[in-house]
């Protein structure tokens, strides 16, 4: 039964990196140190500015990252493990962090910015759609198809004649 597929990949466990969605430290990452009970965990984020504290699981989303340090380890060890794994870098490069940032950027846009974005998008979309149309034309233009067929026929005839000539020589 070794090959059995694990249904869950992320667990509430020591060293699991976590994204805080609620409370005063909303939008920051940290990692679980210990489980307090079924609903809450002890959390520590020395590198991200989250002090060691108890958080409810409903305030937390589990990420794919995990670091290794002994169960119930002090802040010193947590920091060491965080740095060793370069988690700041890893997190900022993740798609999750990117989307999170973009959401905030979009919310902070002023009316004029929104107008500019709209314009930029429309210009981009125009270029893109023209390009797309060109590709479509190349593939499905009936005239081109016939031309291509004609050329192919010509080539085939030439080939035949060549073959015939070579055969005669032989």
């Amino acid at each position, binding site marked *: 039964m070794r090959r059995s597929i694990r249904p869950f990949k992320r667990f509430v466990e020591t060293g699991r990196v976590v994204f805080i969605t609620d409370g005063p430290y909303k939008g920051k990452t940290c990692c679980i140190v210990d489980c307090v009970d079924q609903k809450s965990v002890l959390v520590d984020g020395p590198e991200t500015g989250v002090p060691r504290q108890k958080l409810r699981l409903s305030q937390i989303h589990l990420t794919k990252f995990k670091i290794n340090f002994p169960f119930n380890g002090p802040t010193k060890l947590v920091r060491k493990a965080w740095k060793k794994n370069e988690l700041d870098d890893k997190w900022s490069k993740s798609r999750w962090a990117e989307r999170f940032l973009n959401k905030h950027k979009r919310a902070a*846009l*002023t*009316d004029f910015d929104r107008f*500019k974005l709209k314009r930029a998008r429309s210009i981009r979309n125009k270029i893109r759609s023209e390009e797309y149309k060109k590709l479509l034309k190349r593939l499905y233009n009936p005239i081109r198809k016939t031309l291509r067929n004609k050329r192919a026929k010509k080539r085939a005839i030439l080939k035949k004649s060549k073959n015939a000539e070579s055969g005669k020589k032989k």
Partner: protein
Amino acid sequence: MVEKKSAPKEKKTTKKIASKEKKTEKTEKKPTKKIDKKIEKKTEKKTEKKIEKKIKKKIEKKIGKKVEKKIGKKIEKKIGKKIGKKIVKKTDNKVEKKTDGLKTEKSQKKKVKTAVSKKPSSLAYGKVMFQAFLWRGKWRFINKAEAEKARKKKLAKLAKLKSEKKEIIQKAKKKKRPTIVTKPIKGEKNGEFRKIHLKRKNYYPSLKRPKAHRPRGFYSKHKRFFRPSLTPGTVLILLAGVNKGKRVVLLKNLSSGLLLVTGPYLLNGVPLRRVQQCHVIGTKTKLDIHSLNLPAKLNDQFFKRIIEKKKIKKGEKTIFVPKKKSYQPNAERKELQKVVDKQLLEVIKKHPQKKLLLAYLSAMFGLKNNQYPHRLQF
């Protein structure tokens, strides 16, 4: 007149009766010179004639002397008036005193004087003793002397009442209740008596007194407050009116609490107009408007609506409903619009993102799916 009717009855009466009748007439407040004349004619006797002649001579002498002294017709008239007045007054007084027969004779002598002196008829008649006035379509007369008497009586009554009132008030003042009363209290260890305030005190330490309201004057002179985002030069989004959804430039915060705004007209068709600040969203995009030289004419008075009252002439009335005239800006507004637009466009052209700004101001505002104005930033 009533007096005329009463005259024929008196034809065959004696002196005394005549005098009595005169009394009654006078009590009726209608003494006239005409009546006097008639009565005199009726009661002609030798003795009276003699007296008449004497009095005539005397009066003629008097008047003649005076006329000689003060020459002129006007003066003569004046004198006549004065004499007439005096005579009438004297006669009245005597009658009121209910004089005897002898006295009436004296009074008659004086009445005779009036007849003999041939003064203008309007002199003693009514002018002195009576006041005529129109009331409910009829001419009424008041005897001045009688009226004054009545008035004096009234005044006396009022004075009496006043004095009575004063007395009552003074009595009430004397009986002022004491503010604090000491009352005995039963039971042991209760201090035997207690002081009780009968009146509410003016001050209690825990009492909160309502503050007096600050007088603010007329509405037109109230202080106006504008949202901090609404400073001159900001781009606004209009939310109401004909131009709703359009983006405009705020030029000035007017003293009436309204915002002076323009499209500019060349870009989006919004003319110079005033807008309520509640019908507007202020954005964060701001133009540097300091170089703009706004004409001083652009104030609240300039934008006040002019309502022309039409006077329909009688001949011009038609059955058809007249066509409503649509609003058209006058030449002055058009000119000012041009002046302001020119300057504003120059300001916009100096902006680093000039092309985008021009497009932005000429474009309409709108919400897309999943865009909520309370979550957006402007």
